[in-house]
């Protein structure tokens, strides 16, 4: 499964939103994600990919496209 598919599944499962809402330009705000949603999404992704997501590195990410690219980068970094 591609990274984008896994991120989409996790984000939509935790925010309880329709997967069709997940586009590269969508934001966490579009999913009405609260702080707990976001923490749970990050934990789930760290579990799934065995990576560490640094909160400070997320500050400049504006949409799901950027978020998926960031996760991909972390997977590559891990090797």
């Amino acid at each position, binding site marked *: 499964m591609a990274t984008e598919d896994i991120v989409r599944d996790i984000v939509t499962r935790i925010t309880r939103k329709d997967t069709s809402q997940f586009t590269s330009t969508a934001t966490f705000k579009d999913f009405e994600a*609260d*702080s*707990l949603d976001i*923490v749970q999404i990050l934990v789930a992704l*760290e579990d799934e990919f065995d990576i*560490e*997501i640094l909160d400070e590195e997320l500050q400049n990410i504006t949409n799901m496209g950027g978020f998926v690219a960031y996760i991909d980068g972390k997977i590559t970094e891990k090797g």
Partner: protein
Amino acid sequence: MLEGKVALVTGGSRGIGRAIALELADEGADIIINYLRHRSAAQKTAEEIREKGRRVHTIRANVGEPEKIKAMFNEIASIFGHLDILVNNAASGVARSAMELDERGWDWTMDINARAFLLCAQHAVKLMEGRGGKMVAISSLGSRLAWPVYTGVGVSKAALEALTRYLAIELAPYNIAVNAIAAAAVQTEALDIYKPAEMLTETWQTTPAGRMVQPEDVAKLVAFLCRDESFMIRGQTIIIDGGFSIAPLIT
């Protein structure tokens, strides 16, 4: 003073947990650092402990999940074979008032802050069998004061303190001492979520001791509760706040 002891510090990568891990290592204990999200910080703390000449091991586990707790203790059993000290420090929560707090936020907070201590204690007892041990839970003054948007955490800490009393009685025959520490606002990154800068200024201004509680203050008290000289202290929640809670109107 804690030479040869093996200690688990949940949430031990940063802040108060990190200070506790380092303090117990300074006193001679080998350390297991549990963490959830901050792997780099956990590794950095582990490296500092290794440099002190102690054994150290890191375990990633969300203590809000019973299966993850079980796996963590299986790992501890296979690597260390036993446990002498459990420091229940990991905490989380959502910054919400009572009217805004939903079921998910409540469950998340209670599972990590209160239920985890029960489950960790149940597993830890098996690893302390025949040798005794110490358990210390890190609470907060929010268990008895009502701070804005601290509802979930405050209630979970009240449960933690009550659980401390029950465990202290139930585990005394096994030579296991259980106590809790309730700190005032401690100067860590986690505080940023709950208290804006002006409130922090107010906190230290109204603290008779003249400064805020530092992680190292809490860590030294944990170390004391882990030593045999604290043998007769059981089921207590010891407040460490520089006098803040008894002199709230001093400015």
